[in-house]
């Protein structure tokens, strides 16, 4: 295992100290509790928006704390949900009197830890609404699974919802927009390699020199199907079509599209994927209104990519365009 770390146990702690050193203008960092908080939080009258999850997905979530996006992000150990105490502290820290929205990715651990935290927050007298993100089409949403995982759409939701909260909309409106983005968002990912949880010391799964894993999640866990390596165009097709079909996209629709790298894939390859995505959607008369291409929700050093499409109306695009100033996303300011 070769990583740029000091000791396996201090990976997240030292990352937090690095974020604090780098972005003291944007955030303050509670290193002991592994929480990144917007420097000017709480903002009176503004709905506080928090999220959180296992570390190893950077820049998500800590890299999305700041103007126009998240007010706080709770970091668990690598690929391990954060604990209720963290979300309780974060909820208090961002409560501007207008309530707090919890954006929760659909993982059993995240759901349960956020659930306990929401119970604690109500006990503290803070009004909390929770929205679960479950956009991963690779998992059948049926009785027989823990439901669809929360992946790429989380990034887009945090931007859109963050902008709405910035405009001082009330908690229910902000939560409803988050549900809407979730309902309009679908993703699918794939991996060329696994990744190594520092504490585990070896890759979570092994892939042969000519193999790839289709439908992987973002915790380095194996995916739906292991297959022979295919071309970039074939892979783009395999990821895009299930998303398009599940969303029921048709001629005249517009989307916000993200081609996301899993952490170890260079930008040159992501543009080759975007090239085919653009071709496929153009062929169907679906317009790409906005796009993100790069590493936004990763799995440590995993080589691979994911495609996320959010069917967007004018309001969502307006909120997307609103100013944002975080370590991971910045425009309009």
């Amino acid at each position, binding site marked *: 295992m070769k990583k740029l770390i000091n000791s396996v146990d201090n990976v997240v702690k030292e990352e937090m100290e690095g974020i604090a050193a780098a972005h003291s203008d944007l955030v303050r960092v509670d290193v002991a509790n592994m929480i990144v908080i917007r420097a000017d939080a709480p903002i009176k009258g503004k709905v506080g928006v928090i999220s959180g999850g296992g570390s190893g997905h950077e820049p998500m979530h800590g890299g999305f704390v700041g103007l126009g996006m998240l007010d706080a992000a709770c970091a668990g150990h690598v690929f391990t949900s954060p604990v209720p105490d963290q979300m309780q502290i974060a909820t208090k820290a961002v409560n501007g009197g207008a309530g707090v929205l919890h954006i929760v990715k659909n993982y*059993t651990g995240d759901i349960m830890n956020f659930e306990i935290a929401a119970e604690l927050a109500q006990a503290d007298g803070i009004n909390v609404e929770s929205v679960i993100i479950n956009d991963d089409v690779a998992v059948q949403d049926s009785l*027989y699974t823990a439901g669809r995982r929360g992946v790429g759409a989380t990034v887009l939701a945090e931007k859109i919802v963050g902008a709405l909260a910035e405009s001082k909309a009330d908690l229910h409106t902000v939560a409803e927009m988050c549900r809407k983005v979730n309902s309009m968002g679908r993703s699918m990912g794939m991996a060329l390699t696994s990744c190594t949880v520092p504490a*585990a010391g070896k890759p979570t799964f092994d892939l042969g020199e000519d193999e790839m894993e289709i439908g992987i999640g973002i915790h380095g866990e194996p995916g739906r199907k292991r297959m022979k390596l295919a071309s970039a165009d074939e892979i783009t097709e395999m990821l895009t079509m299930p998303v398009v079909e599940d969303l029921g996209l048709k001629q005249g629709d517009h989307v916000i599209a993200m081609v996301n790298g899993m952490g170890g894939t260079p930008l040159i390859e992501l543009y080759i994927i975007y090239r085919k995505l653009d071709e496929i959607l153009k062929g169907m008369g679906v317009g790409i209104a906005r796009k993100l291409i790069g590493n936004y929700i990763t799995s440590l050093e995993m080589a691979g990519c994911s495609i996320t499409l959010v069917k967007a109306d004018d309001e969502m695009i307006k909120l997307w365009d609103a100013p944002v100033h975080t370590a991971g996303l910045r425009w309009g300011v």
Partner: protein
Amino acid sequence: MEMNSATVVKCLDLIADAIHEQRQYLTDLDAAIGDGDHGINMDRGFSTVRTRLEGSSEKNIGAVLKLVGSTLVSTVGGASGPLYGTAFLRAGTALEGKETLTLDDICEAMDAAVAGIMQRGKAATNEKTMLDALVPAQQAMHKAQADGASIALAVQRAADAADAGVKATIPMLATKGRASYLGERSIGHPDPGATSSALMLRIVANALAA
């Protein structure tokens, strides 16, 4: 061996040692059908439990278990944190104020723990989770209670039932937790959470038999 708080704390220390020793094994199991962190998560939790119980003179067994539960909730993270945390919190509530335990007490605590896991995780048996070790153990304990067995024997039977439960998870299709994302590919692997539950019961059984 007198079932007082000292014994309970002794068992918890032994559990912490075992979890630490089996850390890599539990993580490997979780790597096969999960995200490769179960052993790491459990070791983090139980090493904190050991530190917090060091030199504790707490007589009230309920309080001890509640401390274990809140510690696990605050340190383990992932799915197993809230589940095992809730289990110990509910068991502690059931044994609030007790300074020694009868088999009835232990059965009551076990029932509360299993109910807590089911409520928090919204899962049932046969979904390839820790319940598939804990529910058979619970039933074995009640049977031992009905047979008038000793605590040591009851826990022994529970541990045996739990081990059988772990083996039974191997052919199961996971329908809860991270493993469910794999569909059929989760078949053929034992569940990590069931394995850690069975490990804990085995440690307690061995301690009581000694």
